[in-house]
């Protein structure tokens, strides 16, 4: 349906259950909207055309990745040392030697701060820019981008590899803007996306007929003529994707050379990043790549460096990330795609400044790091700082709402513009965030 602002919104049947409750009785928890006073810097028309969001699920330790500390007691520093990078003055953890080689392309934000230290709600805040708690379920970046950058291409505009998280959903925008989760592991030799090809005995002509029949049946029940019935847009989308072999080729990783495949690393996260690059290349708007396991309460050496497989070379979380991330940045750069592709690596929070008794670190949202690259972002810089032991922001505290504002701006979405809920309520794309002006 077309609403006042001209944004087309769709109402999915599952949403009807919620609509009633929102219509008149909902209450937001953001009741205390302190009067805005700060001036807002807004960058419009960001140059990024697409985005790859690397979601480090569980909350990566800032101290063992992008914010290592020197000259601090060992229980703070942890088992690893800082190393130099190609940018003088910027140091990373020794677990990121390859990333150290592309640091000139990175903007590292070291002063992100959030009040939420529990996985579910923290990642909602990080992935939507809104603190949870209101009856409105806010859409994730990917869903807003998919809604904003309408595409008629057969490939879904928002894809999650290899699997999704509830906070990556479309919220009130409705599931037609939700992510397409490929739900299979790109690192497996027999990797393929489920149900993309015809069921034996059913061909394209029969699918066309089924689609036509579906409209007839929905029309009958609504007492309309079939011409006036719009099918669930997701059904339309599915029919088109199935019918476009060229689009489905995006998922054929075997078309990549052996050298490229091994450059990203053979593990799930590496091949997922490679798939993300292939998808972006073919016009997909936003791809989220999930790396799980970052909730490292125990034994950092094993979880972050060595991995649990007993391999001689470290295959833990950080080496896996290091290889895939540096390959992705390098590959996008070489293909001249980096300028138009925003890459963001983040998790829901950082980890406690002091090691716990299990040699791990617990949840710590008060300060942590998020990394930006590409999409017009000025590389080779650190924005903000944590204090001496990585406990609190030392300068330039940045909220998840600021991050959201910045991501939207870089993607050319006006963070002050409004989305309309199915019952007609206007909701700002971003509330209370400020653009991180150092980015550009």
């Amino acid at each position, binding site marked *: 349906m077309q609403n006042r602002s001209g944004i087309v919104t769709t109402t999915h049947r599952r949403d009807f259950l919620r609509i009633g409750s929102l219509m008149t009785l909902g209450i937001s928890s953001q009741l*205390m909207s302190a009067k*805005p006073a700060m001036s807002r810097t807004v960058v419009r028309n960001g140059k990024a055309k697409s985005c790859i969001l690397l979601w480090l699920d569980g909350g990566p330790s800032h101290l063992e990745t992008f914010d290592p500390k020197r000259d601090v007691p060992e229980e703070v520093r942890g088992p690893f040392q800082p190393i130099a990078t190609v940018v003088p003055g910027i140091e990373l953890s020794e677990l990121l030697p390859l990333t150290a080689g592309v640091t000139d392309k990175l903007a590292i934000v070291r002063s992100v701060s959030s009040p939420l230290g529990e996985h579910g709600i923290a990642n909602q805040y990080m992935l939507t820019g809104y603190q949870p708690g209101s009856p409105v379920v806010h859409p994730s970046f990917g869903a807003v981008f998919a809604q904003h950058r309408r595409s008629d291409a057969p490939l879904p505009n928002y894809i999650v590899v290899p699997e999704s998280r509830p906070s990556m959903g479309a919220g009130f925008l409705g*599931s037609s803007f939700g992510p*397409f*989760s490929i739900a299979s592991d790109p690192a497996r030799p027999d990797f393929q996306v489920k149900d993309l090809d015809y069921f034996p*005995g059913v061909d394209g002509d029969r699918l066309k007929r089924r689609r036509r029949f579906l409209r007839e049946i929905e029309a009958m029940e609504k007492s309309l003529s079939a011409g006036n019935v719009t099918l669930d847009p997701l059904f339309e989308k*599915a029919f088109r994707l199935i019918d476009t072999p060229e689009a489905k080729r995006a998922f054929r990783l075997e078309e990549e050379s052996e050298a490229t495949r091994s450059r990203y690393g053979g593990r799930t996260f590496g091949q997922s990043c490679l798939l993300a690059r292939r998808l972006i290349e073919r016009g997909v708007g936003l791809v989220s790549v999930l790396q799980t396991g970052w909730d490292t309460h125990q034994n950092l050496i094993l979880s972050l460096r060595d991995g649990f497989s007993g391999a001689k070379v470290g295959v833990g979380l950080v080496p896996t990330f290091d290889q895939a991330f540096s390959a992705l940045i390098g590959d996008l750069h070489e293909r001249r795609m980096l300028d138009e592709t925003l890459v963001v690596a983040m998790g829901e929070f950082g980890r406690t400044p002091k090691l716990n008794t299990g040699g791990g670190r617990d949840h710590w949202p008060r300060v942590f790091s998020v990394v930006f690259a590409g999409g017009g972002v000025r590389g080779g810089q650190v924005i903000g700082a944590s204090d001496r032991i990585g406990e609190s922001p030392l300068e330039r505290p940045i909220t998840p709402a600021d991050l959201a504002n910045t991501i939207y701006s870089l993607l050319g979405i006006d963070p002050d513009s409004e989305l309309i809920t199915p019952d007609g309520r206007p909701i700002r794309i971003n509330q209370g965030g400020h653009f991180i002006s150092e980015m550009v």
Partner: protein
Amino acid sequence: MMFYALLVASVLVSDLAPVDFDSQVLPVLTYAGCNAGACHGAAAGRGGFQLSLFGSNPDADYSAIVHFAEGRRVNLSEASKSLVLTKPQGILDHGGGTVLGDSSSSVAVLRRWLEEGAKRGKEKQLKQLRVVPVEAVAEKLGESIPLKAYAQFSDGEEIDVTEWTVFHSTDPASIEIKESPVRAVCYRPGKHLLTARFWNRIVPLSVLLPYQTDRKLALQPAGSSGFVDTEIDIQLDKLGLVGTAVADDNAFFRRLRLDLTGRLPTPEELREFQVSSVSDRRVKKIDQLLESREFSEFWSLRLARLFRLRGSQEEPQAAAAYGQWIRSSLESRRPYDEMIREMLTATGDSHVVGASNFTRTARDARAHAELVGSVFMGTRIQCANCHNHPFASWTQDDYHGLAAIFSRFERGRFVQVKKMGAVTNLRTGEAASPRLPGQHDLEDADSAPGQFANWLLEKDNLHFAKATVNWLWDAMMGRGLVAGVDDFRETNPPSHARLLELLADDFVDHGYDLRRTLGWIAKSAAYARSRGRQTDAKELEAWYGATVARPLMPEVLLDAIDDVLFTSEVRQSEKGKRAIEMLDPAIPFPELDALGRCSRSENCQSTSQQQGLASKLLAINGALMNRRIADRTGRLQRALADGRPPEVIILEFYERALSNRPSDTQLALWLGELKGMSREAQTRWLEDFVWSVLSSDEFASNR
């Protein structure tokens, strides 16, 4: 307007008495947003300065302002240089920006309090916050409604606090708050909710603007649930809405059969129902279904979802015992309060004592308290873990006290009560004492779960009854009277408060009988309504003036697909069990998972089954539907093998799947397509037809 502001200011900053910390300074901090969750009211504070959320802990706030940070926040010799003034005024750098204007009356209050020596004054409590009007009715678009707020403190006086009350609209496009004087301006018809917050209290108020003021309420269809329809019709009337007529027999019967038994009606049943000459055949049918074995079977699944029954692969016996206990309790018509009492207190071998598994559902005492709050009290008490609940009356002491009640349970296979066990109250840092929420501490920790059960299930305590009838209403009507079955709070009031009370009273007075309440609902005219027209469906659905479409549960959907495509003999021999009998989601069943089976890790309502594109790909190319349609033993292929004419097959699938007949034009259209086709082509055509029927939204929802 200026005059007005000064007048109100003079009430708070009167020359007579010194400024009071509790009743004057804290409200200013709330008003300016200083102690909100996003600012210094966060559990960890902000910028090293921590206040209690919305000033709920005056002692702590007084210390934070006057004593902490080496007393730098107050400057008694030069009041205007105090950080509590210079920061919010933006004179010194403030992360939250400028929140107080230099000449605002808020600043005047703070300055005078500082000049008078920043004293704590007499402790005061806010007894009541009264807003006027609580329920306003507007007559036309653009109308302004003046808002006032009055506070009554523990020392008895009631004063006008409108100036320091934050009125909030969640939907400014419908209703907007304007200042000087404070008023609400209404832009859209409907019933709009506002909130008023003063100091540590928040209260709701509503403004109603009828949709049509000139139309008289049309004659409502007669229903037999007197009080249900009376309440629903009163609201519709107030809103100027006219509900739809009752649905026809087929639509009504399909709806009822799915809601009460989780099954589609068979064509035989449909016909029998239609030709029945009994005058109150709908009422009779409702009573008959409520007494059926199939009702107990399906509502066992509903209860299992509510209780979040979930077994483990290693110990399937535990969930099996639990499921059996639920089923037999329902079959034997055990009063629901008795069931709950047993769940709250049962101990023993969880492989044998089914009810003891409720305790095992929670991993620890806090989770136990949250589960009890959500399932039996309809409330999200977990908000009170770190701070007093901002939108409900639960305090941190209530939360940790409730957790303490369950802290002695041992949650292994053998559920038992230990001698020891405690939880820490995060507010005090000490062991929490067991406490009945909103009531008092319990002396004897050993009997705490039993005492809690007594309190919860006491006749005068309506938390439990209201939460339960609201859950039943939600299941039948598509949306609870309180939207969100575990979201009872002052600021989320029921759409029909009196109806909720009447249903709860009736439930309590008649032996906590689930079937009785379901009967009231099913027999109402509101339940029987047909769909809204495209133009006004949304408004009508919001007020139960038209039926609300709701997706079939994955279990019900899978059974429905099987019922349409297979005869019962085939199903029996192939699978043995219906999907709705799988009470335990830990039992592997990939097809159910693909349809979005609820994992029960959270409330099954809030994990809305958003499945997106993958679910459509599955429907189109997946085996779930395609394999069943092509199955030689299935209803379609058998009918074809028997040489049944296409017309008969078409009609049969309409009736089985949609409980309906195609219109004459549509039937003509279908038959026109089939004309002149080879048998083989007809087979493929019919396969495609059946696929489309079973993939339609019409089939997959109940309305």
